[in-house]
């Protein structure tokens, strides 16, 4: 038996890098330090595995599956390539080259997660930081529309509310505020809970900014919160030495979407005239941030890139996968490390089911169910190494702990094979 330390957990955007894993006979037998999800991820990754490539449900050789994938992509007039947030940055990078070569739309799951955060940033910017800044300095922490107790189980202990830093030693030295529509498990640990009416975050953020600017609120109640309480809250935000706002899909998915983020950005910007304030998106999948980073450096744009005319064109709402599907625009799709069928609206799924879909995934998913070509791959971060970016864009190296099942290659290797064949096929 061997123990591997400082393993990076390939589940959520927290990328905890202190996991200890015991390995025996090429299997993970014990996980220490990880959360419940992490422990399950490391030990149960062989559940519902796919072991053989398939075309139309028929088991085939890897070569056949790759040839079929290449034919589908090369013949498509408007293929879409989607997913990417649960694989290595290196694999995504090859995906980008494939998209460019076949003139497709390259999108990652940020579009249905923190895509609006990026759109908000593109209009207003963002004052942000790595998580250690929060750990070391933050006296006041807000969780807005996010529930780390469920979605990022170790976040509060490792990086935020209860973390121990150089200048702020722990939970007692911090004030924690939660803004949510439910009294979430995170909210139950907070010093202050603001229960906001659904779909009114924009109004509250706007009112807070106006109160921080010392403006007068003419409405008695905003977003279900009395004006005096908003003014009190504004005073609290101004008075801390270092404040951090963590925000989640409660902002990006509710009415206003990108504009909610922009309102939050503007509030934080305003606060920096009085104190130090930052905000950090609670990114979901372990490498969705890496997908944004590598797409940005290779194409200029972090998601939703349309290569149909040979160069990158970007306009979320047009070039995002959900929209491309809902309009029925694409005529083929390559899905890597994602399961859109279990998360997309019905109309989008219906249209996806009408076109040839190629899926790379270690596991059976609802998407592999409707795919024409299925190529099984190794589990990144357990059976394959590579780089990944934490929610605060800190890059880390995922480790290879065990060998994948015989004949199973990594996403990176399979995509390289597809790219190579495509290069021969498309001149």
């Amino acid at each position: 038996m061997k123990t591997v330390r400082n393993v990076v957990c390939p589940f959520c955007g927290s990328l905890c890098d202190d996991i200890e894993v015991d390995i025996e006979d090429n299997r993970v037998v014990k996980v220490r330090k990880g959360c419940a999800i992490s422990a399950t991820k490391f030990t149960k990754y062989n559940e519902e595995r796919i072991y053989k490539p398939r075309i139309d449900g028929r088991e085939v050789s890897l070569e056949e599956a790759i040839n079929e994938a290449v034919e589908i992509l090369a013949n498509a007039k408007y293929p879409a390539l989607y997913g990417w947030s649960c694989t290595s940055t290196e694999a995504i990078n090859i995906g980008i080259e494939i998209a460019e070569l076949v003139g497709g739309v390259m999108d990652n799951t940020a579009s249905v997660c923190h895509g609006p955060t990026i759109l908000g940033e593109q209009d207003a910017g963002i004052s942000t930081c790595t998580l250690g800044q929060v750990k070391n300095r933050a006296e006041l922490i807000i969780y807005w529309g996010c529930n780390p107790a469920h979605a990022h189980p170790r976040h509060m202990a490792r990086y935020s509310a209860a973390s121990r830093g150089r200048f702020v030693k722990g939970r007692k030295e911090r004030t924690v505020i939660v803004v949510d529509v439910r009294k979430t498990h995170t909210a139950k640990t907070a010093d202050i809970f603001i229960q906001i009416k659904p779909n009114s975050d924009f109004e509250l953020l706007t009112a807070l900014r106006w109160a921080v600017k010392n403006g007068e609120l003419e409405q008695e109640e905003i977003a279900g919160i009395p004006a005096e309480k908003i003014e009190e809250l504004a005073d609290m935000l101004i008075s801390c030495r270092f404040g951090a706002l963590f925000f989640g899909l409660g902002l990006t998915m509710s009415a206003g979407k990108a504009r909610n983020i922009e309102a939050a950005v503007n509030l934080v910007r305003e606060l920096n005239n009085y104190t130090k304030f930052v905000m950090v998106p609670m990114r979901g999948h372990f490498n969705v941030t890496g997908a944004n980073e590598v797409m940005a450096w290779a194409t200029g744009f972090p998601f939703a890139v349309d290569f149909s005319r040979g160069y990158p064109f970007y306009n979320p709402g047009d070039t995002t996968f959900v929209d491309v599907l809902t309009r029925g625009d694409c005529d083929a799709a390559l899905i890597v490390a994602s399961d859109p069928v279990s998360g997309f609206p019905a109309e989008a799924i219906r249209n996806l089911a009408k076109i040839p879909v190629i899926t790379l995934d270690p596991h059976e998913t609802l998407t592999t169910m409707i795919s024409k070509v299925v190529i099984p791959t190794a589990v990144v971060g357990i059976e394959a190494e590579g780089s990944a970016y934490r929610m605060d864009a800190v890059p880390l190296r995922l480790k290879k702990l065990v060998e994948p099942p015989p004949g199973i290659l990594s996403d990176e290797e399979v995509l390289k094979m597809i790219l190579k064949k495509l290069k021969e096929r498309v001149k």
Partner: protein
Amino acid sequence: MIKVILITGRSLNQGVSKELGKFSKEYMEKVAVCELDPEDLKLLGVSSGQNVKVKTKYGEVVVKATESTQAPHKGIAFIPYGPWASILMPSATESTGMPSLKGIEATIEPAKDEEILDPEKLIKMVVGREP
């Protein structure tokens, strides 16, 4: 029948059971659920563990009602991300790329005798054919 605002999101159970497989019993048990405020359950005359039907403008689905541990949130229903939630979502993104997965008007009614569809049946229902 009650009117609610439907939100979706991650839950710890959803995260853990997802790693056990999308076709596992655990996944269906933990994800095909609707968390309701105790008062809303009372209004519905449904007890925790019984099935309810959730309807929106975009679709309807039968899931298991559970009493929320994150109450109070009267008038708000929560379904974890997954195939059961997404059927209820609008496909329009208001040209942002992001469907509105939170804050949707919905109704909930008791459906004690109706079956919760497994993922396979669910997809068959959505795409209208054998996957």
